[in-house]
């Protein structure tokens, strides 16, 4: 019976956390009018969350593109289809790797930083201090981070895909001798705006909402101790990664029937 009770407790705890996360999301959305009056808060967070993540996204994008170029060339050349290397690299990046890898890197860099910062603000009573200064911490601290995360993710994914395409070009065209014009022309003719690009943007937007929401909730809901903050950052990375991979399958299934 012990295991049954433990299962029940875990279920109740999960439901309670899910409920709190949803309430927090609604509370953050309520802070949107206040954010519109103070766009500076959003710009600050766009810098902290988006701009400071650019380096890891750019470097990863280039290397992922280079690996795709290398692997793609060796497989395609077996069938004499190396001319389609540009399509393969671009489609892989825009549809899947761009949004997914960006979201995983985002969770590891910006998401964990966000959880730790909010958790420490809670542990050092800064959030309580704001409340006692008659400032709503959900609107003042959390809403700008949520919106900045949602805006940043598609932009970072686009940067990742763009640099990945150039990485593939560098290896395929620059090192392995694929024709330059063919690389770009095939890509231009075969990549569909709606099916590939827009779907990729939709995916990264959804990942942006989910990853930022998870990061903020974990920080805000953590036990205000050093151990609690550490656990919150770990949970942010683990939960975000699992959510991104799971949602990617669901979204892909919906988008491509």
């Amino acid at each position, binding site marked *: 019976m012990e295991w049954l009770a433990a299962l029940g407790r875990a279920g109740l705890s999960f439901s309670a956390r899910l409920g709190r996360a949803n309430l927090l999301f609604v509370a953050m959305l309520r802070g949107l009018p206040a954010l519109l009056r103070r766009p500076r808060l959003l710009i600050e967070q766009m810098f902290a969350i988006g701009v400071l993540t650019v380096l890891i996204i750019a470097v990863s994008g280039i290397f992922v593109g280079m690996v795709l170029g290398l692997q793609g060339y060796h497989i395609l050349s077996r069938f004499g289809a190396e001319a389609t290397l540009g399509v393969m690299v671009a489609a892989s990046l825009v549809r899947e790797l761009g949004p997914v890898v960006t979201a995983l890197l985002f969770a590891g860099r910006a998401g964990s930083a966000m959880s730790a910062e909010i958790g420490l603000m809670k542990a050092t009573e800064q959030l309580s201090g704001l*409340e006692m200064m008659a400032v709503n911490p959900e609107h003042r601290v959390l809403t700008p981070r949520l919106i900045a995360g949602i805006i940043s993710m598609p932009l970072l994914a686009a940067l990742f895909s763009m640099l990945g395409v150039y990485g593939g070009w560098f290896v395929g065209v620059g090192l392995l001798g694929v024709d330059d014009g063919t690389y770009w022309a095939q890509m231009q003719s075969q990549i569909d705006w709606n099916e590939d690009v827009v779907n990729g943007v939709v995916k990264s937007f959804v990942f942006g909402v989910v990853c930022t929401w998870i990061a903020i909730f974990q920080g805000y809901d953590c036990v205000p101790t050093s151990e609690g903050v550490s656990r919150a950052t770990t949970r942010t990375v683990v939960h975000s990664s699992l959510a991104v991979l799971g949602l990617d399958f669901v979204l892909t299934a919906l988008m491509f029937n």
Partner: protein
Amino acid sequence: MSPKRSPRDILVRIRGLKFYRGSRAIFDGVDIDIPRGGVTAIMGPSGTGKTTLLKLIGGQLTPDSGTIEVDGLNVHALSTRDLYRLRMRMGMLFQSGALLTDLSVFENVAYPLREHTRLSASMIRKLVLIKLEAVGLRGAHQLMPSQLSGGMARRVALARAIALDPMMIMYDEPFAGQDPISMGVLIQLVRRLNDAARISSVVVSHDVAEASQIADLIYVISDGRVIESGAPQQLREHGGEWTQQFIRGLPDGPVPFHYPAPDLASDLFGEPA
């Protein structure tokens, strides 16, 4: 016991306060009157819920039963907007200072002014420097919180707490962990701000000597109840056995030195548990 006061003289009125954490009663029917214009100390051993009491007064926690009125307003019956309006008239000094670590000392003190007033930048600058001068840290206005000592951080937090000229300030363990000089400065500041700006002060502390030095009225709480209340001198001379032990810091008394345990001889020579 405390003298009778008219309702107008009472700033915070707590009646029948009950608050539980799980099944443990933190407060079990507490009645407290905090008078206007004075320094009221809430004292008791660690873990008796003194900080919780401040959070209940500030509306950050909700009691299981009972009422808390601040300036005639039932804190827990207010709408969010009215509660925030009330909080603008209440300052709170947290034990850690709770300064925003990404803002300088100046910006921390300016924060509530920027949030709640439409004063010009030059007026805000003047006000911030005046508040920092009051706590002796005008010269430190460019420093970041990480560059401050614990005592300085609390003084900056105090300047921030008085930025909007509140009617009351709640101090959460203001003297804990301070060196004698910082403690002396804080003691003097609490009393001076209270008298000069006519701010009512609620000091939560277990530092008996320091709190007794500045308090006009002391409430001693333990085990979820008010054990005694009165002027410091009155409690020192006529307080009950428990209060005497607490005030004089005696190791044994109603609060025993030993944690409840079986007989020593049977524990040493009997069968192991």
